[in-house]
């Protein structure tokens, strides 16, 4: 045969071009699902690859431990521990960089060189010369944020001594990919830098000659980490070791894993919703096409075409639509994935970070969407193929309508003829109405989720943070100091009130369950302090004379109840082991904490009262004013100060950072949800129109106006949308629950499941707008209804 195309293929092309609107809207829904999947999966995979490559290349440690001071010879004992492959002992210390013109001086983490583990990857410049006292490599995120280049000089206060450091290189380390400064809620690269300096310089500044205060280990394959940690702790305990941790708990890695897990969870949870809607749409639309083409199918059967060939034809129809969507989705997904990666690359510092879509992801995305389409099609075509051709050629018997509630006296009186037609149609096809409502409801749910993150963040900052943190400035000390040292701060001009805060690193356990965390000690019962314990219900908790108040989740994790005794191993000082009665629980959005009165805490430690942070309240006219800058300089000039944080900046940074990502996500989700709404409403309207064309044309002939027949057709859609909105708000509530529990590590951070009325209102409004646009598109078709030809066409 000379022809390339089978006549059925031409029919396919012409059928598709006749239903362009439907093809496009369904393909777009598929595209959204595929794009969401591909973008999130690719971003996830790209980041994971970059991280793993970086970790492997720069020997990221398996175990980390901090201590006060130990002689270098102790290294041999650590190396002798069973299961340890490599040991690196170094000095890590906190300093401050009082940069010119920067109000709140950034903190510096100074790390001694050379390193055999957690090595520095140089972006530019060189490593400090051996024995150099004032050369450093600076972390690149900080360098970018503060516009520091090779050759610049940066002031550093380390061990109470101020010196000028010459920047000779810019680099990054696997240990400091993400950083969170003391008192900060959000990562702000300009707030904390890492300086890598020659060991001799650091030793001298901290008077740690011949000693180390930090250890990193690599384990042999399959060595049991917990056994090793127990032995390391035993070796380091006499030297002020505060408990070794595995890399899961290492700050940078744990922040990074949390972000990556969140992305991975989203990638598996969100896209299936789109594909489900696409399958439903294909089912609804193809069912109708198949019904409209009933007699064509019968003719093909009469001509000798088999079920398989005809089924294959409709499968190709669906596959074409899905493939169009999948192709578009792949391109969109690759682009979105690359933008996500580039957005992440400003937070996650990796030596190389390239966005790539792997073949497997693409194949899964296309495979799943085609399967969804095939399922939708199969269920639609099966029924007609089962009919003998002679029967399929006859118009279907008139639909059976029954008199029902609508025909009862009362309803009869209040409902006009049009309303009754609408309601009977709904009554007659409840499944179809439900299917479309379900699809729209998913879109409403997605809209709710899109706004939820913003609302949750706003709540955490504006409500929870304002209630718990009432200080203006927080000053972190290098080590616990006597209460009297707060006196220096009280003397500073503009300082209205000063309070100490004590946090003690501990390991709490109950039976075999344990967690490493900090016990916080508050002045008095804590209710009038500058930092308070506040529950999710926004009520301030008064701390009892004795005993501790635990974060609710901590109680659940340890399986303890009020009145139980908590086993506490103090990880500093004399390393006492004591037990503390559990006095109460509090729901908190951040972390795991144990709260106690300072007096009870010090009694427990057997120590004189001490503080390791100061909270300052400033005079209202000073707070936020330029005079605060002078204050910062005076504070950092005090001995033992390692960090200063302003509440206003903490909040601003947190908002700024979350707003960017949340806004981007919210826009993407809103666009996707709109696509679903338009896809569902438009396709349903087209299907309804094709099913009722004759009825509506007959009504026009009888004298109904265009408005009246539109009301009949669109009334049914309005019912679907109105049913969908409350259902969708329920879905939204459910999705929010799934997101807040599944998308974050609950031990770090629990998004409060708050859905504000404004969120619901937004979701409902956007849905109605989408429905309205779709209705307008269909209304245009309705206005062009050709009365005579419609009536002449044989069903």
């Amino acid at each position: 045969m000379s022809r390339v195309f089978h006549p059925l293929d031409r029919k396919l092309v012409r059928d598709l071009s006749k239903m362009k609107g439907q093809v496009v809207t369904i393909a777009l829904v598929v595209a959204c699902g595929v794009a969401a999947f591909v973008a999130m999966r690719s971003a996830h995979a790209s980041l994971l690859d970059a991280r793993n490559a970086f970790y492997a290349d720069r020997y990221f440690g398996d175990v980390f431990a901090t201590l006060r001071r130990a002689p270098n010879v102790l290294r041999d004992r650590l190396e002798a521990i069973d299961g340890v492959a490599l040991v690196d002992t170094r000095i890590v210390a906190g300093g401050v960089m009082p940069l010119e013109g920067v109000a709140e001086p950034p903190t510096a983490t100074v790390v001694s060189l050379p390193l055999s583990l957690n090595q520095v990857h140089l972006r530019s410049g060189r490593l400090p010369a051996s024995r150099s006292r004032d050369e450093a490599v600076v972390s690149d995120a900080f360098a970018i944020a503060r516009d520091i280049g090779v050759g610049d000089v940066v002031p550093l206060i380390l061990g109470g001594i101020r010196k000028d450091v010459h920047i000779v290189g810019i680099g990054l380390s696997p240990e400091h990919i993400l950083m969170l400064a003391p008192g900060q809620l959000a990562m702000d690269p300009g707030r904390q830098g890492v300086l890598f300096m020659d060991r001799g310089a650091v030793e001298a500044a901290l008077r740690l000659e011949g000693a180390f205060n930090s250890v990193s280990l690599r384990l042999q394959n399959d060595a049991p980490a917990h056994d090793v940690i127990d032995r390391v702790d035993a070796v380091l305990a006499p030297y002020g070791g505060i408990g070794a941790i595995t890399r899961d708990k290492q700050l940078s890695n744990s922040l990074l894993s949390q972000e990556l897990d969140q992305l991975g969870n989203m990638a598996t949870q969100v896209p299936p919703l789109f594909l489900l809607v696409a399958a439903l749409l294909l089912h609804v639309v193809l069912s109708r096409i198949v019904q409209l083409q009933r007699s064509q199918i019968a003719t093909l059967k009469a001509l000798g075409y088999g079920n398989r060939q005809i089924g294959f034809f409709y499968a190709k129809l669906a596959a074409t639509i899905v493939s169009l969507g999948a192709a578009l989705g792949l391109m969109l997904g690759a682009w979105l994935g690359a933008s996500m990666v580039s957005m992440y690359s400003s937070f996650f510092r990796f030596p190389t970070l390239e966005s790539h879509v792997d073949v497997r992801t693409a194949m899964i995305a296309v495979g799943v969407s085609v399967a969804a389409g095939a399922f939708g099609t199969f269920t639609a075509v099966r029924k007609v193929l089962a009919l003998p051709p002679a029967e399929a050629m006859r118009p279907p018997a008139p639909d059976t309508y029954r008199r029902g509630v609508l025909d009862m006296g009362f309803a009869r009186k209040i409902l006009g003829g049009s309303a009754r037609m609408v309601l009977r149609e709904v009554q007659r096809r409840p499944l179809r109405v439900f299917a479309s409502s379900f699809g729209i409801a998913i879109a409403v749910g997605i809209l709710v989720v899109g706004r939820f993150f913003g609302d949750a963040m706003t709540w955490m900052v504006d409500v929870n943070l304002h209630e718990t943190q009432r200080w203006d400035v927080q000053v972190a000390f290098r080590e616990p100091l006597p209460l009297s040292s707060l006196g220096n701060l009280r003397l500073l001009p503009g300082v209205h009130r000063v309070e100490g805060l004590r946090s003690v690193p501990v390991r709490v356990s109950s039976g075999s369950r344990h967690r490493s965390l900090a016990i916080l000690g508050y002045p008095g019962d804590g209710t009038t302090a500058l930092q308070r314990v506040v529950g999710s219900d926004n009520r301030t908790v008064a701390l009892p004379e004795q005993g501790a108040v635990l974060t609710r989740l901590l109680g659940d994790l340890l399986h303890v109840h009020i009145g139980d005794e908590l086993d506490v191993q103090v990880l500093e000082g004399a390393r006492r082991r004591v037990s503390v009665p559990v006095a109460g629980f509090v729901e908190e959005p951040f972390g795991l904490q144990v709260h106690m009165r300072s007096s009870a805490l010090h009694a427990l430690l057997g120590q004189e009262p001490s503080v390791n942070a100061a909270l300052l309240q400033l005079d209202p006219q000073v707070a936020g004013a330029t005079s605060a800058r002078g204050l910062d300089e005076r504070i950092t000039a005090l001995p033992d100060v390692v960090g200063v944080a302003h509440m206003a900046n903490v909040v601003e940074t947190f908002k700024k950072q979350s707003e960017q990502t949340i806004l981007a996500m919210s826009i993407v989700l809103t666009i996707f949800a709109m696509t679903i709404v338009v896809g569902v409403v438009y396709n349903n309207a087209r299907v309804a129109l094709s099913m009722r064309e004759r009825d509506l044309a007959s009504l026009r002939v009888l004298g109904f106006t265009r408005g009246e027949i539109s009301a009949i057709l669109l009334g049914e859609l309005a019912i679907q949308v109105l049913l969908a909105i409350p259902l969708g708000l329920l879905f939204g509530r459910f999705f929010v629950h799934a997101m807040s529990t599944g998308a974050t590590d609950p031990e770090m951070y629990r998004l409060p499941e708050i859905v504000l009325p404004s969120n619901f209102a937004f979701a409902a409004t956007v849905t109605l707008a989408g429905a309205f646009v779709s209705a307008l598109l269909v209304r245009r078709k309705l206005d062009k209804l050709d009365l005579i030809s419609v009536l002449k066409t044989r069903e």
Partner: protein
Amino acid sequence: MSAGETTRAPAGDAVLSATDVTKIYRMGEVDVHALRGVSLELRVGELMVLVGSSGSGKSTLLNILGGLDQPTSGEVRHRETRLDGASDAALTRFRRDHVGFIFQFYNLIPSLTARENVELVTELVDDPMSPKEALELVGLGERLDHFPSQLSGGEQQRVAIARAVAKRPDILLCDEPTGALDYKTGVQLLQVIERINHELGTTTAVITHNAPVGAMAHRVVTMRSGEIQDVVVNESPVAAAELEW
């Protein structure tokens, strides 16, 4: 009276036969007895006309003979092969290899041109006419690339005929082929059918509610209320061109 025994075949053996066939439909909530024990043979080369009023069961009988539908009871054979109770695949095979259908409403695929509608069939079989040849046979050699919506009713019906005969079927079954056409176009169409029966020797059955059409047939079978009422053998059929109604 039994049709098979009292009517003399104008030629040869039975190609299709129905014995004691009944058909009951369920339309919405009512049972319709479309056929009540019908027996009939369609013989090689003959042109048979089935007449009867609307609802007499002629279309149902033709559909069952053509393998488009299954009888509720009774036996249907194509030569030696049983069609009643045959699988869907077997019936598809039978229609594909042996039967050409023409329907009152043409049943062309609206999105395909005249030529492509015929190609639908020529794609399916081994030794078809070329679509052009088939369309020339019905006098539409000039309108190959027109879509159904660009053709008159008579032309559309001729495309349907071309589509039915292009695969050189043994049997041509026509259900009210002139039903939607005016007198002049109807006669032209019957001439085409007559020509196919004569020139190609295709066994042909034509359903009509228009009694005068019977004059062109070898046999005229009259149906009423789902039964065969009368069978008349026509010794000297009239040419289609001379029919009048």
